[in-house]
């Protein structure tokens, strides 16, 4: 003996009886989830971009040109021992000059009048995989700065930090939209359920009189909520994907990110958003029923 076979058809008959209201609810959910998804998508790609640039980070240290060769060897050994250093490469003043000559082959005038030793010798440092996070690089940079013989330390911190700030800001926006999503869904779904309850109050009353349990009465409403969440968030994800594909072909990314190809939200994130919407709508439906389910 099970009441499940009776709950499912009742859900669909409830929804048929209140079609317009359910459609509007699903569309509202779709709209809010679309905004949330869009902001998640932007955050996700900005974060990826920042991660990619972090990976490209090379720390360049300038070495005092007056440092004797044996001190340079000592310095290289010390740097190699520092935590997070994967590889180092020593570039003499002459090698540095040759690199510049190659880079400015067509504009040799730029280098006219500069001697081969105008650049200080440098140490190029590659960091280990675990050091890509800026927060971890900072202590390494300060250790390098404190080493005698090193005059300056450079890394592409401005760009990476700017990207990270943008990603953090987007995350804040995403969280705010998430909150908005929560409130809107609670408001819209609970109102739809309350309207349905009002329209069907006589039927629900009769069901109570003939001995229906709260589960039997509540079941179709919770299922309705789940379906609204599924349809709304599913539509939103489809619309977001279409929007993403359209924008990818239309937008020309500016210089420094022109080689970055944005990707759509990964499957687990999409699944999470849909599952979250379903759970949220079902919970709101169940709670909206509570006041009705008295003895």
């Amino acid at each position, binding site marked *: 003996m099970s009441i499940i076979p009776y709950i499912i058809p009742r859900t669909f008959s409830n929804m048929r009886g209140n079609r317009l209201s359910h459609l509007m609810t699903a569309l509202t959910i779709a709209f809010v989830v679309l905004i949330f998804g869009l902001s998640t998508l932007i955050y996700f790609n900005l974060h990826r971009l920042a991660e990619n640039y972090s990976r490209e980070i090379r720390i360049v240290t300038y070495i005092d040109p007056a440092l004797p060769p044996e001190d340079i060897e000592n310095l290289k050994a010390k740097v190699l021992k520092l935590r997070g250093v994967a590889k180092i490469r020593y570039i003499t003043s002459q090698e540095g000059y040759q690199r510049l000559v190659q880079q400015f082959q067509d504009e040799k005038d730029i280098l006219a009048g500069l001697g081969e030793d105008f650049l200080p010798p440098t140490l190029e440092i590659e960091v280990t995989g675990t050091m890509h996070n800026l927060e971890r690089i900072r202590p390494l940079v300060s250790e390098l700065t404190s080493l005698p013989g090193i005059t300056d330390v450079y890394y592409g911190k401005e760009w990476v930090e700017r990207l990270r700030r943008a990603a953090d800001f987007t995350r804040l926006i995403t969280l705010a939209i998430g909150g908005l999503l929560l409130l809107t869904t609670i408001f819209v779904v609970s109102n739809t359920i309350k309207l349905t309850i009002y329209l069907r109050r006589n039927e629900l009353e*009769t069901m109570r009189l*003939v001995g229906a349990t709260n589960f039997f009465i509540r079941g179709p409403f919770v299922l309705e909520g789940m379906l609204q969440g599924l349809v709304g968030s599913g539509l939103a994800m489809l619309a977001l994907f279409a929007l993403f594909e359209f924008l990818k072909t239309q937008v020309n990314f500016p210089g420094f990110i022109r080689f970055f190809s944005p990707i759509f939200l990964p499957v687990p994130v999409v699944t999470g958003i849909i599952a979250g919407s379903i759970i949220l709508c079902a919970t709101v439906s169940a709670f909206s029923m509570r006041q009705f389910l008295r003895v």
Partner: protein
Amino acid sequence: MHNNAVIIIIRTTFADKLKNKMDSPLIELKHVYKSYEQDFTVLEDINLRIGKGEFVFVNGPSGAGKTTLLKVILCLERSTKGEVWVDGINLKRLSNYKIPYLRRRMGMVFQDFKLIENLTVFENVALAMEVCGVKKSVIEQKVDQVLKSLGLEIKKRIYPRRLSGGEQQRVAIARAVVNDPLVLLADEPTGNLDAGRAADIMSLFNEISARGATVIFATHNQELIRSTAKRVIILNQGRIVT
């Protein structure tokens, strides 16, 4: 020898319990009060015993507390004071969770029928079995049988709004009896019907009672009561007069 003594004791205890159960009324109200606000008492010191298979009229003017009395028995309302027992269950101690299961053992018929407009006659009656989780095949068989016994088999696919008042009340009775309830509670079931239809409905209740169900029939219709020789409980301003 020892084992035989144990068996005899068990048999005796079981027999005593069975006898007590048979002797005890199906419904018993002990000093029951029901008030909605401090100075608005609807039922006052109600003491009542109704035996298994009894047919009882509850009579009294409008506002006497007839409907509230039925609601208290069906556990739609909790008594403010006193004890209500139904088939050995003290309703005061019955948790909210168990109330639906109690209601499944009782059938209730209302003056306004309380049929669901968007369900057919068949579906309205079947609902009472669906909430119990009975198999579809069993439901079909039982509902058809009950509808047939009430002369409604040709109306089973029709929606309630296309039925006459008497037919709608018969559907409501079908829904109330389809689970073979111990008790059938009726709240002014003939109130919306003309004299001829009321007599039809009355004879239906007599048939149901003859099959063994306890019937509590609330009505303010004196004619109906005079036409039978059944026990009558008269309520006035929330108190039992006789």
